[in-house]
C-alpha cells in the first residue's frame, strides 16, 4: 500500500511530466519588457525632492505585480456606492471657485512600477507619477476627495501610502498587516479599513492623523470590504474561510462571522443599506445575499462560472455580477440579479474574461471590460451594446462623477483609455506606467 509520501510523489511526477514550459527566450523577453523602473519613463520638468525610488532598496522588491484585476472590484463598489456623495462634494467645490470638472482627477495605480499616475480628466493629460512603494494594487479615496490611499504589497509585510490630492504628494506609508488586499473608507471619511490578506486581520486607519489602530481579527484571507451607507458596519469577505465578518465601526469589534459560499471574493451593499451581496468565486459561481438587519445569509443565487465582481445600480434595484469565466473555454458573462426578489436574470455575454465592472451615476449603463473590449449594457433592457475596442487586456475601470467619461486601465499596453459615454467611443489612450490595474476618481 502506498504511503502519503509515494502518493504525493506520484501526483507531482505526473504533473511534472505534463509541464509545458514556455521557451526560455520568451520568459526572458517577458521579463525584460517589465524591467523598466518607473522613474525613467517620466522626464521630470523640475527637480523635486529625491524620490524614494524602488531601486534604492532593491532587497525589498520581491514578487512583482501579484495583485490583480481584483483590486478594481473594491474600488467600483466605492465608486458606485458614493455617486451621490461625489456630486454633493462637487457642488461645494464649484462654490469655491474653479469649475468642478477641471478639478476631477483619475488616479491610476500601476501594479508593476509602484506608482500612481494622476490624470486630469478635463484634458486627459497625465500628471507626473507619484511613487507609492512596491507593487501597489488597491486604491480608495476619501469622500471629500482630499486623500487617496494606496495599498502596497511587500513581501511578508504591507503598507498603505496616503496621497494628498491637493499637492499630489505621497505621505509616509502606514504599516498594516501582511498583504493589504482591499481598502474601504467610511462615508464620513474618518476611518479607512484595510484588509490584510495574509494576516487574517483588518487594520483601521484614522484618516485625520494617518495612524493605524490595533488590527481586528477576521477569518482567513480577508480579501475585500464594503461599508454600509450609514457607516455603522464594515463587511469583510474572508476568501479562505468562506465567511463574511461584520465589524461594528463604532467599537471596531468583529461580530460573529456569517457563513457564505466558498471563496467569497467580491462584496457590494445596496444603497439603502438593507442587503449585502457576496460573490463566491470558485467554479460554480453563486451570490449570497445577507440581510444587514439580522446578519443572516439568505439562500445563494446561482450565477455563472467564477463570480468575481459586483456592482449595484444607484436605485438599488439590480445587482450586476461579473462571472469571470475560464479562459479560453468558458466566456465571461454578467448576471443581473433583481434585488427585490433575489432572482437571477439570463446571463449577458461579454466576450472575454473579466473581473471588473462600473455603473454610470445615472444608473443607465453598466460597463464591463473584458479582454480587449469594453461592453456597455443598457440596464433598462439588459441588452449589450456593440463592444468598444480598447485593445490589449483591459482591467480596472472607473467613471467620472458627471458620468461623461469611463477610464479603462490596460495591463498590456500600460495605458488608460478614456471612453466618451455619450457616444461610446474610445479617445486616445494615455500612458500611465507599465501595468495599470486599478483606477479611482477624486471629485
Amino acid at each position, binding site marked *: *500500500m*502506498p*504511503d*502519503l*509520501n509515494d*502518493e*504525493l*510523489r*506520484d*501526483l*507531482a*511526477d*505526473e*504533473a*511534472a*511530466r*505534463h*509541464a*509545458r*514550459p*514556455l521557451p*526560455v527566450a520568451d*520568459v*526572458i523577453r*517577458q*521579463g*525584460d519588457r*517589465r*524591467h523598466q523602473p518607473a522613474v525613467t519613463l517620466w522626464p521630470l520638468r523640475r527637480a523635486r525632492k529625491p524620490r524614494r525610488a524602488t531601486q534604492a532598496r*532593491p*532587497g525589498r*522588491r*520581491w*514578487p*512583482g*505585480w*501579484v*495583485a*490583480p*484585476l*481584483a483590486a478594481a472590484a473594491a474600488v467600483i463598489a466605492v465608486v458606485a456606492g458614493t455617486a451621490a456623495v461625489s456630486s454633493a462634494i462637487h457642488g461645494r467645490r464649484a462654490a469655491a471657485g474653479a469649475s468642478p470638472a477641471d478639478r476631477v482627477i483619475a488616479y491610476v495605480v500601476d501594479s508593476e512600477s509602484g506608482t500612481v499616475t494622476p490624470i486630469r480628466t478635463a484634458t486627459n493629460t497625465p500628471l507626473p507619477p507619484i511613487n507609492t512603494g512596491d507593487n501597489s494594487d488597491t486604491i480608495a479615496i476619501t469622500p471629500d476627495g482630499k486623500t487617496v490611499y494606496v495599498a502596497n504589497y511587500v513581501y511578508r509585510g504591507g503598507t498603505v501610502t496616503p496621497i494628498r490630492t491637493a499637492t499630489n504628494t505621497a505621505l509616509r506609508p502606514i504599516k498594516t498587516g501582511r498583504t493589504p*488586499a482591499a481598502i474601504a473608507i467610511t462615508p464620513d471619511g474618518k476611518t479607512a479599513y484595510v484588509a490584510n*490578506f495574509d494576516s487574517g486581520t483588518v487594520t483601521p486607519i484614522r484618516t485625520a492623523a494617518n495612524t493605524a489602530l490595533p488590527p481586528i481579527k477576521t477569518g482567513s*484571507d480577508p*480579501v475585500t470590504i464594503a461599508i454600509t451607507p450609514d457607516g455603522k458596519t464594515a463587511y469583510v469577505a474572508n*476568501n*479562505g474561510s468562506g465567511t463574511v465578518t461584520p465589524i461594528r465601526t463604532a467599537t471596531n469589534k468583529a461580530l460573529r462571522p456569517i457563513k457564505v459560499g466558498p471563496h467569497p*471574493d467580491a462584496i457590494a451593499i445596496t444603497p439603502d443599506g438593507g442587503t449585502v451581496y457576496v460573490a463566491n*468565486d*470558485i467554479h460554480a459561481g453563486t451570490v449570497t445575499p445577507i440581510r444587514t438587519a439580522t446578519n443572516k445569509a439568505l439562500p445563494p443565487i446561482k450565477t455563472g462560472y*467564477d463570480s468575481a465582481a459586483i456592482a449595484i445600480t444607484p436605485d438599488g434595484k439590480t445587482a450586476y455580477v461579473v462571472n*469571470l469565466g475560464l*479562459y*479560453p473555454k468558458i466566456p465571461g458573462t454578467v448576471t443581473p440579479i433583481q434585488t427585490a426578489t433575489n432572482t437571477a436574470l439570463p446571463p449577458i455575454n461579454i466576450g472575454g*474574461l473579466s*473581473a471588473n465592472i462600473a455603473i454610470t451615476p445615472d444608473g443607465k449603463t453598466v460597463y464591463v471590460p473584458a*479582454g480587449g473590449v469594453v461592453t456597455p449594457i443598457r440596464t433598462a433592457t439588459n441588452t449589450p451594446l456593440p463592444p468598444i475596442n480598447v485593445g490589449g*487586456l483591459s482591467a480596472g475601470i472607473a467613471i467620472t462623477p458627471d458620468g461623461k467619461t469611463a477610464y479603462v486601465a490596460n*495591463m*498590456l499596453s500600460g495605458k488608460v483609455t478614456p471612453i466618451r459615454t455619450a457616444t461610446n467611443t474610445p479617445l486616445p489612450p494615455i500612458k500611465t506606467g507599465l501595468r495599470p490595474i486599478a483606477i479611482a476618481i477624486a471629485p
Partner: protein
Amino acid sequence: MDREEFTSFYTASFPRLVGQLSAMTGDRAEAQDAVQEAFVRAWVHRGQIDIGRGAEAWVRVTAWRIAASRWRRAREGIRLMLLAAPPDRTAGPGPDRVAFVEALRKVPAEQRRALVLYHLADLTVEQIAAETGVRPGTVKARLARGRAALTPHLRETTAPVGE
C-alpha cells in the same frame, strides 16, 4: 545569474516546481501558470537570487503567492499576457488518484504546502518554517493535521475510515 545560468536553472527546475505546486494547489493547470509567471519574475529579479537551491526556493515561494486563491484572477490575466498555449485541461490525474486529489484539495492550503515541502522538496521542519514564515511548532502541527486528513484517502486503503 546570467542568461546561460538562468536557462539551465529554468530547464532543470520547471517540471519539478510544477510537480510541487500541483501537489500544493491540487490543480495542475494553475500550478503551471503560477510557476511560469514566477520564472518571469525570477528573470526580472535575477540580480538578487542566488543560483542553486536558493533560487528554486525563491521561485517556489513566488509561485505559491501567485497560486494563493486571491490571485486566481491575476493568473487568468497572466495567461493572456504570456500568450501561452492553454495548458491541457483535459488530462487530469489518473482515475485511481482522483479521490486522493479531491481529498488533497479539501486540506487547508497551508497544510498542503507544508506536506509538499516536507515530502517532495525534502526540507526540514526548520527550513519549512523559514520558507513559510511561521514557527517550527506551527509547521509540525500543520504536517500532523494534513497527514491525518489525507491518510484515509490513500490508494488501496481498505481499512475502515474512522478512529
